[in-house]
């Protein structure tokens, strides 16, 4: 049988233009694996937006990361002060993975 490990599943929703900056932060938190997907539209109390590739300034991406508790803690610490000014959305959930040593 295979063994599963408890890890964190982190989602960061951010402007696509800021993805490289976020990846720098991931690396600072010793995280070396991530996946990015585009978000097409969304809404906030201020209004709604659609992805628009012409300006590039109003398109958002979701960064998905699986990491252990320690790296998650470190990343959250790096992100927390930026959440408001950068308009990030950060969620942290629990998942089980198989090859635990990879994360």
């Amino acid at each position, binding site marked *: 049988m295979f063994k599963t490990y408890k890890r964190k599943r982190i989602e960061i929703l951010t402007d696509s233009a800021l993805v490289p900056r976020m990846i720098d932060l991931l690396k600072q938190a010793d995280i070396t694996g991530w996946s990015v997907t585009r978000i097409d539209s969304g809404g906030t109390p201020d209004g709604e*937006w659609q992805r628009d590739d*012409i*300006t590039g*300034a109003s398109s958002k991406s979701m960064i998905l990361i699986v990491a252990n508790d320690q790296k998650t803690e470190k990343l959250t610490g790096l992100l927390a*002060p930026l959440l408001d000014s950068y308009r990030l959305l950060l969620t942290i959930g629990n998942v089980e993975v198989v090859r635990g040593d990879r994360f």
Partner: protein
Amino acid sequence: MITETLTSPVILFFILGFLAAMVRSDLAIPEAFAKAMSIYLMAAIGLKGGVEVASTGFTADLGWAAFAGITLGFLLPIPAFYLLRHFGKLGSLDSGAVAAHYGSVSVVTFVTATEIFAARNIAPEGYMVGVMALMETPAIITGLLLARAGMKQSTPATAPSSTSNLLHEVFTNGSVVLLLGAFAIGMVAGADGFQPIKPLFEVGFRGVLCLFLLDMGLIAARRLLQSRQLTVRLVVLAVLMPVMNGFVGVALGTLIGLDPGSAATLGILAASASYIAVPAAMRMALPEADPSIYLTMSLGITFPFNILIGIPLFGNVAQMIG
């Protein structure tokens, strides 16, 4: 010239897109298609400009126009910044970000102006494409310096991207690279080398511009509908700044001896606000600035204003004083 402009299909497609979004139609241009058209248009104008310069050679006019363009790019954000800060009541971060947009240029405004001036027999010189490419980035630097000077006291939690990063980003910006690259290819290839690829870049040009402006109309109107931060003062500035900058541009162009078409084009470049290079750069360099302010002013107000009024206006002015 304004009524003539308003019956050109290029402009009518812009109006169609604008109205469609205003009545909340679900008409939408796939973004990959819009981006593709934008790349096509930049490659086409870059090539054409380069081919023209290959035949005319580097003239003194070209040098003066380039110098004037770069100077405008560096200086126009300064009065804009003070207007935005004191009349517009924006913070220094947002003022710097918006000012950078108005110092830079809008490619599609340039292309539309070129088409309309050509139809009025005052086509600008080919090198104006190069001037436009050179005007894309200086304002970014001025805008950032202004924004940072204004917020010296308050240090952001993490340092914004380092200056070297930023300069790299600014000079390797996709649209700048494509415009200057295609310009260089046009110069190397010359009229003969351009011949075999000319069909695509000439036959489709105006038609693609129509469909692209249809999309810009949709984007402009949707920006306006979705914005909530827009104050009356900002609306006033989004019309005032292009008028001011445009007059400065036409006057400077005429002063350095450009033909009326090129002077008018320098005017519309000064009047136009960036919607490609600068928003992306600002989002990276000043993530704390509110993108909905600069995008709404630039795309929602100034862009339509220039397309409908600015282009014929500066064309007329340049012809009168030229």
